[in-house]
């Protein structure tokens, strides 16, 4: 038996997403050679986590199994250790104006404690990373991807000499996701259920300060909890002692986000892809479109105006066999018109789904295309995303 393809997040595939490939100061060699240990390393092992190299850390890819963990999160609450991600604190005079030079969000108008999804851009309009940025008074708390964090920090330091960047290495990050997450977390942090989707704030637990946002990467309601690393085991243990919570690995994190139609950096986003190609125009508001003034604005605004050459779309794949990253997208005449950037078997839908890029004129939902993987052709149709509806907790919604 051979291992032909390893789909989902691994160091091997993530490495392709390393930013600054074209940058003489960065490049492929910037990944750390030795693997770091998470604060919860021994806790993961004790819980049966199968550890794999990822983003420079040894991380749990699964505990009892990806399928079971995935479905548990959709029905109950899953606890994810995402402490590999970079937590940054940006401060200094005029941070909001400064970060607008390299991110297309409207940070000057950003309201306090409301996380905003944004993108770190290069001068060609390519995506160096995707991130969440939250105003805290005059400062910004920014969470970036684990595999890209060191490159991101270097880039920010080069481009934002007027901003002080603290890498909050002493903070761990947990995500509690699923329809029962709010009830569970409310038992240790009373009042947490009052937060609405994409709201954040300071809380306390076990005598430690926490920063919690109601957000996540699964399509479910849930929370992301920044906590001092010295206290993370206490919180994790407390959470999984609740029968509604199980620890969930990277494997299910990947299948959950794919069903939710959310792009994964290094796969569905990279430094050659613009936010417009990726269908992330919502991250660029009216003022930023009118004024520009961010890295790559010329190309990005032209693409908003005239349409991008390619678009990120979902695919429903015929049959049962998963079609994975790297497969080609072909039109009816066999011409290559795109490629698959993420794909796998959907545990919730019990059929294969995929995400990728196609020529813009073929991006309409329902367009019939072929996918080619290892010499075999698959019928597929462009599908609307998310594949599984989001169930965020929007205030005012029923």
């Amino acid at each position, binding site marked *: 038996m051979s291992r032909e393809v390893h789909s989902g997040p691994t160091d091997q595939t993530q490495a392709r997403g390393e930013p600054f490939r074209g940058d003489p100061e960065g490049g492929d060699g910037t990944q750390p050679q030795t693997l770091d240990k998470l604060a919860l390393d021994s806790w993961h092992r004790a819980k049966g986590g199968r550890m794999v190299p990822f983003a420079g850390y040894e991380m749990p*890819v*699964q505990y009892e*199994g990806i*399928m*079971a963990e995935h479905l548990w999160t959709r029905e109950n609450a899953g606890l994810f250790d995402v402490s590999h991600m970079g937590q940054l604190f940006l401060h200094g005079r005029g941070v909001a104006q400064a970060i607008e030079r390299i991110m297309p969000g409207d940070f000057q108008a950003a309201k306090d404690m409301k996380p905003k999804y944004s993108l770190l851009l290069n001068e060609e309009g390519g995506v160096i990373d995707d991130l969440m940025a939250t105003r805290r008074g005059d400062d910004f708390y920014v969470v970036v991807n684990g595999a890209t964090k060191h490159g991101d920090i270097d880039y920010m330091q080069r481009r934002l000499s007027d901003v002080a960047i603290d890498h909050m290495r002493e903070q761990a990050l947990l995500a509690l996701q699923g329809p029962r997450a709010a009830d569970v977390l409310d038992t240790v942090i009373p009042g947490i259920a009052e937060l609405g989707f994409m709201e954040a704030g300071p809380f306390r637990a076990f005598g430690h300060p926490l920063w919690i946002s109601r957000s996540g990467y699964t399509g479910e309601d849930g929370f992301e909890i920044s906590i001092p690393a010295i206290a993370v085991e206490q919180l994790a243990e407390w959470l999984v002692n609740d029968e509604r919570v199980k620890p969930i690995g990277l*494997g299910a994190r990947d299948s959950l986000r794919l069903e939710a139609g959310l792009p994964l950096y290094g796969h569905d986003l990279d430094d050659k892809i613009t936010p417009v190609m990726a269908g992330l125009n919502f991250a660029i508001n009216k003022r930023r479109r009118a004024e520009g003034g961010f890295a790559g604005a010329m190309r990005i605004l032209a693409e908003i105006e005239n349409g991008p050459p390619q678009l990120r779309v979902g695919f429903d794949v015929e049959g*049962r066999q*998963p079609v994975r990253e790297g497969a080609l997208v072909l039109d009816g005449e066999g011409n290559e018109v795109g490629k698959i950037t993420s794909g796998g078997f959907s545990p919730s839908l019990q059929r294969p789904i995929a995400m990728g890029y196609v020529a813009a004129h073929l991006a309409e939902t329902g367009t019939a295309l072929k996918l080619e993987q290892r010499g075999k052709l698959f019928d597929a149709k462009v599908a609307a995303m998310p594949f599984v509806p989001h169930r965020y907790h929007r205030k005012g919604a029923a």
Partner: protein
Amino acid sequence: MSLYFTREHEWVRVEGDTATVGISNHAQEALGDIVFAEVPDAGRKVSKGQEAAVVESVKAASDVYAPVSGEVIEGNQAVADDPALVNSDPEGEGWFFKLKLDNPGELDGLMDEGAYRDWIKTL
């Protein structure tokens, strides 16, 4: 009846000149939840080391090699219909295909069960 294993984690059970082939329990554990299996049709000739079947889990796709050469007598439709059978009974009902052996001498290079179980402990 004899049971042999390959370093690629296939098993082959030999009765007379018929060989039944599947993947080991160790292999299914490493793959995780199996969601797709493709088995060869009867009549197909396979040679030792050649891809004969496909198995895919949520996270990985693998080829199953023919541990020995021969002509396929039967592909296991039950695993094609219900791939999770490979997880639940990998070395029994979760077999992939049966071959009529071309050359029983090819079995000599394979591990016996004891050697295989010892070897995977070292992986």
